[in-house]
């Protein structure tokens, strides 16, 4: 865990260099030192370059770290509860459910632009929860969740929800619909520090509560009947974890749109390295997911510089083929 933490700090410093304008590592360190000494991120102290670094790039990187951590963690817990390594909030339609809730709120004009304090995360939560319930009900048969019905349920829900989202964006005013489309594709935008702080409190709190369920999640992978015979109130734990997952996903989608496959790629990779114990897997996946999204977003900012690619496109292009690989060559291990 400590190496991963150090690695993520190093990665933040590395990623800070990239952008439309290259800022050398020495200069990055200088500015960071000034900020730490002065305790301020205003341009009088650190100049234009400093403002780019500290008010544009850094908050966006931190947002990426946070969003990636949440997506990977939700992926881990959904996989444990559904006993299926292919589960991912994006694949199962939880993200699109949340997006539908948020898009609806934007259409009705009940969301303000100050995202972290708005009701948008709440709308996302209800949308995400709705998807989870529907997917579960559609896929469950005789107490089991066959992998193919689970994926099918996600596909169907995704297409229904995207149709509804398309409809909503099509009846919006043109200038708002363009912004909504960009957000939907999965985009990180530099937040203000207060907004970032509020979001961080909310999301890290959620992750902390999930982490408390780690040992129970281990036991739940034995199957619900075994878990109950080991003294776990399975319904209570499941309800709690599903609610937390929907809350986290709702908030994440409301700030960054639909960023797919992070919740599937990262837990899989971390499991290969550290094993399946959720007490390690969950925090390690959170850090790894955060780093992964930081790298993806840095690529999104620089590949077509000065234009930007939505980061959701990059994670989908990286994660989609991985999903196909798992489904084609590894499915006999978990079908």
């Amino acid at each position, binding site marked *: 865990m400590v190496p991963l933490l150090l690695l993520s700090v190093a990665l933040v410093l590395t990623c800070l260099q990239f952008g439309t304008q290259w800022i050398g590592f020495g200069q990055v360190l200088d500015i960071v030192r000034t900020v730490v000494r002065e305790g301020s991120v205003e341009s009088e102290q650190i100049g234009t370059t400093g403002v780019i670094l500290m008010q544009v790039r850094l908050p966006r990187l931190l947002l990426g770290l946070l969003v990636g951590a949440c997506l990977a963690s939700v992926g881990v817990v959904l996989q444990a509860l559904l006993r299926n390594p292919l589960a991912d909030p994006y694949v199962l339609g939880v993200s699109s459910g949340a997006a539908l809730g948020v898009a609806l709120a934007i259409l009705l004009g009940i969301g303000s632009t100050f995202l972290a304090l708005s009701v948008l995360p709440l709308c996302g939560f209800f949308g995400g929860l709705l998807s989870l319930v529907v997917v579960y009900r559609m896929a469950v048969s005789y107490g089991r969740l066959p992998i193919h019905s689970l994926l099918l349920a996600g596909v169907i829900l995704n297409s229904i929800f995207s149709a509804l989202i398309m409809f909503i964006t099509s009846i919006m005013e043109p200038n708002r619909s363009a912004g909504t489309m960009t957000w939907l594709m999965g985009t990180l935008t530099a937040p203000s520090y207060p907004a970032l702080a509020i979001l961080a409190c909310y999301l890290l709190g959620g992750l902390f509560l999930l982490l*408390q*369920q780690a040992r129970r999640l281990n036991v739940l992978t*034995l*199957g619900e*009947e075994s878990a109950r*015979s*080991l*003294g776990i109130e399975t319904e209570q734990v499941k309800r709690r974890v599903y609610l937390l997952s929907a809350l986290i996903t709702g908030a994440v989608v409301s700030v960054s749109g639909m960023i797919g496959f992070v919740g599937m790629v990262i837990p899989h990779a971390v499991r290969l390295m550290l094993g399946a*114990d959720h007490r390690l897997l969950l925090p390690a996946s959170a850090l790894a997911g955060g780093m992964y999204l930081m790298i993806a977003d840095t690529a999104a900012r620089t590949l077509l510089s000065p234009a930007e690619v939505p980061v959701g496109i990059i994670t989908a292009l990286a994660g989609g083929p991985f999903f196909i690989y798992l489904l084609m060559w590894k499915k006999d291990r978990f079908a």
Partner: protein
Amino acid sequence: MSLSPAHTQSMLDQAGPGASASRKAYEVQALRFRYQPPSRGEANWVLDGLTFNVQAGEILGIVGPNGSGKTSLLKLLAKVLRPHDGGMALFGRDLGMMPQVEVARTVAFVPQESPQVFSFTVMETVLMGRYPHHRRATWSAGFGWESAEDLSIADQAMQYTDLTHLAGRSVMDLSGGERQRCMIARALAQAPQVLLLDEPTAFLDLQHQMEICAIVRRLKDERGLTVVLVSHDLNLASQYCDRILMLKAGALFRLGTPHDVMDADVLKAVYGCDVLIDRHPDSGVPRVTLPQYRAAKNVGGRL
């Protein structure tokens, strides 16, 4: 599968009250259970009015045709399912009133299949059996790491089931017999007084069947464990169980020693087919064999 005297002793210490033979592990009164509500005049009872006791320290085999309610009964004893009606007592305490985690400290349940899709190691899986003994009522109850005591109990459980050399192996890479032993080790790590096994030898070849049976027998003899097992294999039940409970369509048909239950008339009444009964050449317990197939004269030609 050698066991040093020190280990045997510490295992015995944990067996606790289960070791005394006179007590009743379970008292089951007029037990009724169904999965679905009644429909179209059908009561849909899976188990209807079962009354029996399980003596502490005995091996009780539950046998009966497919769909006679064997597995449901086992799950009711584990409190994995809740009865519709009737009373169950576990060592004198009302099972219905006991918190799930307290049941788990006394009763360990091994389902017929334990599919695992994540690469937990054997050691990690066995340690999951320590969950009910985790000190809780703290904010980190769901997190907590295992103590040194937990590790040593898991070690013993793995020695007992001859899994020590596989401790670091992923359970996904185990053979059927190894996986079944791993699940039994997980159950032993619970330090239970009662072990509930659902078809412990299903899908296993002869050698692995023998291994599992030997483990079960030793658990009874050395640790005084009460074992309730469901089996399709009448001969295995006859050979390894002290008493046999024969179910027919959710009702208790006969309960007694293998000699009482493995009777041609009883089996004809329950399974609806003629069988041959003779003696096991080694142990003398009843042995059940299907007779030679002879085509009935009036239908033989048409088949």
